[in-house]
């Protein structure tokens, strides 16, 4: 369990696959800005097409302004091999 999550507070949780990170002061930023900021840290690639905000798919990630407390997930593609 992560300790820093504050729904409705000033932080935002960003998730990709098994990884997550809590960020401060990203309200009003856009999803592409977050993607660019965390590409290497959370290993977000161009294959991560689907973005969820608070568990719901958003149509145009480019125009969505992040609100305090939003949980953002870049849905990691399923493992292909086995």
């Amino acid at each position: 369990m992560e300790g820093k999550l504050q729904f409705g507070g000033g932080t935002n949780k960003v998730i990709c696959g098994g990884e997550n990170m809590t960020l401060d002061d990203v309200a009003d930023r856009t999803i592409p800005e977050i993607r660019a900021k965390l590409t290497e840290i959370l290993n977000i690639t161009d294959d991560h097409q689907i973005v969820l905000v608070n568990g719901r798919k958003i149509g145009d990630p480019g125009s969505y302004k992040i609100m305090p407390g939003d949980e953002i997930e870049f849905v990691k593609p399923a493992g292909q091999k086995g």
Partner: protein
Amino acid sequence: MRVIVVGLGGIGSNLVDALCRTILFSKSNKVSRKALLVDGDKYEAKNRERQRYTAFANKAEATKEWLKESFPELEIEARPQYIDSNNILFIREGDVVFLAVDNHATRRLVSDHIGTLDNALLISGGNEEFDGNIQIYERRDGKDFTPPLTHLHPEIENPKDKNPAAINCGEAVVAGGVQLLAVNLKVASLMIEAFTLWLLSMDIPYTEVYANIKTGNVRPAKRIVD
């Protein structure tokens, strides 16, 4: 209420021992003591690093042989062929399917077929080099109780790879990338965990789980049916 394992490679061949043990000692009446193994591939020396086998033979048939010795109480059958649209009807009402294949085309095929059944459980696992995931698709009373494998996964909905049954003899099979036994085992373990909760009639608090052995992180996610 059979258990079917499709794919007996890095994940599937390591899954089956724990799966048979789970079925054999379960007090649940949700599954019978019948298991069906499905794979059209053969074990080769190059598989030794990650896959469990005792003979260079068809994976389904070879696995059946050693499982029958370990678990004579179970009725284990083998189907030595890749699953495709011509033979998929052997997956029937009430089946529990463990999908451990190496391509999204087969995941799409099986998920779509499960969607035509009234009651069935599909647990699918896959991995890359250091990370992997499982997905749980359950049909109850003719409805999606959890979302299909294609939900939020365009790589499965529109697979770029091919079902091995559709690859011609002259077509080169693209070699899979690097895989690690530890990751195969992690995914297999997550699949057994989900099955155990289902057998115990407990609510599975997730529909998907991601794991990464480089960070040690495991994250469950609960997706909602649209």
